[in-house]
């Protein structure tokens, strides 16, 4: 009121008019809950208008969303910040995920097996944003193929089981056990989780049976085809091959060539079959001593004999005997009377 009196300077009509305006404004403030405006010469915060909307294109494939943003031509060199958000519903009233603000214009967002709606808004200063620009229609990311997954993702599976076979009379026994030895449980690891699976002994398994051992949740199964171990809840354990002397392993027949009492060469009469390691060669004779030789195996058969010491005093017909030939097997090869009728040759 002091300001009104000062301004009117004794002019009662002017003072009455100004007082009326003042009271009317006070009434308006009370009704609207507002306050008087600041002086027009007070410095206000700088306002930067948002840029024109950028163009948004989202495509889904192989479990990923590929986001591509095209900025307006008039943007010049000024960086434009983009804020992308998605929602499973078209009106974005629920399930909204807002991704970090960035000036980037291309993203690949992994999110397999979902269908989402997408929208975008732009800003020069991350304070004043343009209105949202939504891409028409929903986009499906699709399913991710195993080849598209990175290493160490949760799909990775490993186990700490040993699978082997031992001869047991007319059949073999396939054993599954852990690092503690036969009869100890083992651990299956799938991504970040693991579980302990009991040890097992499968008896009465026929020789010459190649199979894939799988844990079905209750027991082990021995399947001839790898694909038969693929049901979702099953745990592939290992691959086992059970062989025996009489059915799977044929030892080579080697003959020595003697000149002047020394063995100067070897003849491979029969290369053998089913060998998984070089057989041991022992050379016996009624008079000669000292000769040594080493067999070279390829594709299950002997392809070469490397002579060692030639020896001396040999007769014209020394005997060369091959034994072993099974990786990890006992000397003499695996067999029904041996202690290792088969071998594990691969983990799944």
């Amino acid at each position: 009121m002091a300001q009104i009196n000062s301004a009117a300077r004794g002019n009662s009509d002017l003072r009455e008019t100004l007082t009326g305006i003042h009271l009317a404004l006070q009434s308006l403030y009370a009704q609207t809950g507002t306050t008087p405006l600041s002086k027009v010469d007070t410095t206000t915060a700088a306002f930067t208008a948002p840029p024109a909307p950028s163009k948004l294109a989202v495509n889904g494939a192989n479990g990923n969303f590929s986001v591509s943003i095209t900025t307006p031509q008039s943007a010049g060199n000024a960086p434009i910040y983009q804020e992308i958000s998605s929602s499973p519903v078209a009106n974005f009233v629920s399930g909204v995920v807002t991704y970090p603000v960035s000036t980037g214009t291309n993203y690949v967002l992994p999110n397999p097996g979902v269908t989402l709606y997408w929208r975008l808004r732009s800003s020069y200063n991350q304070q004043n944003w343009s209105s949202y620009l939504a891409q028409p229609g929903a986009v499906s990311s699709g399913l991710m193929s195993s080849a598209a997954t990175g290493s160490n993702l949760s799909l990775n599976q490993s186990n700490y089981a040993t699978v082997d076979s031992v001869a047991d009379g007319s059949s073999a026994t396939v054993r599954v056990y852990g690092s503690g030895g036969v009869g100890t449980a083992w651990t299956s690891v799938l991504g970040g989780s693991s579980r302990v699976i009991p040890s097992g002994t499968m008896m009465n398994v026929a020789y010459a049976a190649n199979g894939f051992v799988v844990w079905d949740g209750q027991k082990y199964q021995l399947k001839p085809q790898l694909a038969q171990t693929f049901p979702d809840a099953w745990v592939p354990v290992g691959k086992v091959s059970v062989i025996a002397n009489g059915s799977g392993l044929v030892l080579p027949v080697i003959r020595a060539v003697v000149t002047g009492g020394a063995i100067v060469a070897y003849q491979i009469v029969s290369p053998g079959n089913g060998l998984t390691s070089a057989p041991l060669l022992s050379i016996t004779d009624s008079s000669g001593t000292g000769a040594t030789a080493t067999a070279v195996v390829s594709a299950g058969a002997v392809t070469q004999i490397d002579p060692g010491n030639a020896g001396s005093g040999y007769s014209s017909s020394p005997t060369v005997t091959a034994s072993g030939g099974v990786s990890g097997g006992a000397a003499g090869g695996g067999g029904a009377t041996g202690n290792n009728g088969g071998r594990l040759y691969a983990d799944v």
Partner: protein
Amino acid sequence: MYSLHEQYLDVASGFHVIELRDERGNRHLIQLAVGHDGCPACGAVHPKDSLGALDPGAAIARVNEALNTSHQQMLDYADKHGLIVR
């Protein structure tokens, strides 16, 4: 010590499944193959020819004895050195 917990014939896989358990809940499975996959495509299982010669009781006793022997060896070690067993 391990002892027989349960046994059953699983027709789908062709195994006589025998489960042994010890007092701590550790499990060991003995599986006698009484059938073999006759058809990899349909999974049909056919009985083996040697079923008459199979002796499940002897198999259980043999495996059980092996498991308990190794178990007893550990208990003997604990007893020798005065260790408590958990």
